[in-house]
């Protein structure tokens, strides 16, 4: 998957070094941020609102100035370079297409500013329009187009002047679900074709997973974890990442003993489980063990699992391809299980006793998320 990311690992395209940002002088929005963006990669900044991801993007675009630290683009420090001299393309949340200009005029705008020869401008505009399949729409005004079309124009405008870097600030937020998924694929294809470095901001984790070479998960001004989607999902670094990306069951407990990658944890309800270590921890440390709902086996399939526990069904929701079962464990702890509907022809009923099994490699012991 990370094809572009591999191309040039030696010098990062963009790097944040010890970057701080505060608006009021008291509460930092971004703190002590280190981040390397590789040339040609598709990096997503993911996090809840207020986590600092958009601020990072704006600092990169030049609309915000870092309070401390430095940002490099290639090998030059760009802290004091004004935004219009950074040569960075940007796609805004609501497209920000100029309403008083036609689509063609919108695309010409960055080229006119750069005083390119007219012939070249026409060629580039035509190529950009064709790239987003809007070749016939050049004379329309933005308001005469659908949201998806406007989105494509915005994309074309951000790319038409061959920027070093393209930033996208929740560009698909205003589209409905189907169109959004369609656009995700389109963006991905464009990225693969052009090989341009893209920094993408979103709060939608599935979008992040679908598009990115790497994802940086932000919370409270920190990057909690930066990894490729699979690692992020399968080996979350802490409970925040585990619960923010995908669904997650977290049970509290203490580390009792360690055996290399494995350890034994005594959960708060008294159950002992074998788990794999996600973070370096010591004996006696407070820990969370986390397991994805789809990694919990039920009844017959749980035979042979290293960790088995019993419980009662509290709720069953039928979701077509799978069932969502809420199970109460000993000590009133609850756990959610996703079971493929096809494998569980007979329904569970409320109050049924049920056996659960979890393989140690799916049961990950995590430390508490970094926090202030």
């Amino acid at each position, binding site marked *: 998957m990370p094809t572009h990311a591999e191309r040039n690992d030696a010098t990062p395209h963009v790097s944040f070094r010890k970057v701080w940002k505060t608006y009021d002088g008291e509460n930092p929005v971004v703190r002590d941020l280190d981040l390397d963006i590789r040339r040609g990669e598709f990096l997503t900044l993911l996090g809840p609102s207020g986590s600092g991801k958009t601020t990072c993007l704006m600092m990169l675009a030049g*609309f915000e100035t870092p309070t401390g630290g430095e940002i490099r683009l290639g090998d030059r420090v760009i802290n004091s370079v004004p*935004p*219009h001299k950074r040569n960075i*393309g*940007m796609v805004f949340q609501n497209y*920000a297409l100029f309403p008083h200009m036609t689509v063609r005029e919108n695309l010409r705008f*960055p080229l006119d500013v750069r005083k390119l020869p007219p012939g070249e401008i026409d060629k580039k505009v035509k190529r950009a329009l064709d790239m987003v399949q809007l070749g016939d729409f050049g004379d329309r005004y933005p308001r005469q187009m659908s949201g998806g079309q406007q989105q494509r124009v915005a994309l074309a405008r951000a790319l038409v*002047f061959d920027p070093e870097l393209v930033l996208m600030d929740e560009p698909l937020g205003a589209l409905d679900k189907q169109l959004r998924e369609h656009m995700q694929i389109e963006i991905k294809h464009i990225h693969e074709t052009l090989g341009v470095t893209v920094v993408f901001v979103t709060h939608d984790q599935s979008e992040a997973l679908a598009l990115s070479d790497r994802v940086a998960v932000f919370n409270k001004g920190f990057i909690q974890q930066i990894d490729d989607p699979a690692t992020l999902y399968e080996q979350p670094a802490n409970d925040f990442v585990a619960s923010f990306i995908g669904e997650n069951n977290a049970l509290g407990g203490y580390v009792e003993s360690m055996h290399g990658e494995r350890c034994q944890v005594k959960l708060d309800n008294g159950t002992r489980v074998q788990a794999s270590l996600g973070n370096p921890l010591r004996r006696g440390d407070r820990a969370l063990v986390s397991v994805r709902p789809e990694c919990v086996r039920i009844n017959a399939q749980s035979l042979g699992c290293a960790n088995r526990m019993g419980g009662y069904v509290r709720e069953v929701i039928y979701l077509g391809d799978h069932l969502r079962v809420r199970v109460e464990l000993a000590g009133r702890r609850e756990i959610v299980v996703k079971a493929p509907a096809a494998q569980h022809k007979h329904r569970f009923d409320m109050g049924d006793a049920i056996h659960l099994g979890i393989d140690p490699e799916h049961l990950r012991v995590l430390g508490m998320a970094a926090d202030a």
Partner: protein
Amino acid sequence: MPDVALALPDNPGAARTVSLKAQLRRAERRKKLKYGALIVPLVVFLLLTFVWPIAALMKRAVDNPEVVAAFPATCALLRGWDGRSPPDDTVFATLANEMAATRGTPVFASAAKRLNMEQPGFRSLMMKTAKALPPAAGRSAPAAGRSARAALIAADARWGELAAWQLFARNASPYTARYLLASVDRKYDDAGHIVAAGADEAIYVKVLKRTFGMSAVVTACCLLLGFPLAYLMATQPARVANVLMIFVLLPFWTSILVRVAAWLVLLQREGLVNQALRAAGIIEKPLELVFNDIGVYISMVHILLPFMILPLYSVMKGISPLYVRAAISLGCPPIASFWKVYFPQALPGVGAGGLLVFILCMGYYITPALLGSPGEQMASYFIAFYTNQTVNWGMAAALSAILFMATLVLYMVYLRLVGGQESASRTT
């Protein structure tokens, strides 16, 4: 519906469509009537307070009832006169009769005043003649005609001249273009041709030009001052914007007269501004700030500024700051971005505010009257002058009509510019 279907069993579908269509039409019509009824009071109100007065005003501008009312028969005769040879005896006799019949009445006085308006001295000519005439008699024999001619010429020799009769004949119709012509410094000469008014009388073309010129300057000043403020208000957080808004609206809470008086106090020779400047040692002799164009401009810009700011603000409020950011991100320097991306979007506000201020400006007369010299008086001043001072409503109406037409033309141009742009961008 079932009845229809039964009656036409062959094609129930078509029947249903027809009756559905009819029903829809009926329902739509009822709805339209109902909504129409709601705006009837407004329409009546507009007709009474807007359309009717303007129509009345336009009519006043060409109305010429005075002479016809006093001397209907004479006027009828004069309408058929060639205007080059002396009128025949019948005309003399008819006029003598009608003069004798109406002398001393308000109708006679109005007619005399009306004729005097075009030819000073004609009033006393009429009075003198009426006094000298013998009592009215129904004679119209040639002999009586001859004696009437003699009697009139005996009363005043001017009746023997063509000019007096030409003047009379020009006003023998109940409508005249005289007032409208006078409003653009034109008049009829004795022979009835339209000629330019003499240099001593010519004033309105200059006044109209000045009216437009001053309105343009005030509008430009309002735009220059109002645009940054409106922008500031549109981009500040609501709390700050509200405070600014109060300051913008503050002038509305006092009457224009009070504000003009306040400017007078501030700007006069020994006023606060001059005192402050002198105390600060900036000037030695007091500046002439009032009773000239400076005072008028300051005060009018102050009064009209809100009318520029409010439309600008409402348009700017709807322009997302993202556009300028987008332009900058595309490589355009900030000021150029503002000019190329923000300003064109604010243009409807500039147009609306400019039009509003310009039109209001054209109607102003209190401010120039109190703060300006005679060299700053605008068209409205003369409208008020003719309305109140000399009670020459024809002239007032003609000047009003010209201002009104100018406003209309201006509005049309505005619609063409803004409306054209809109429709161009709307069509798919």
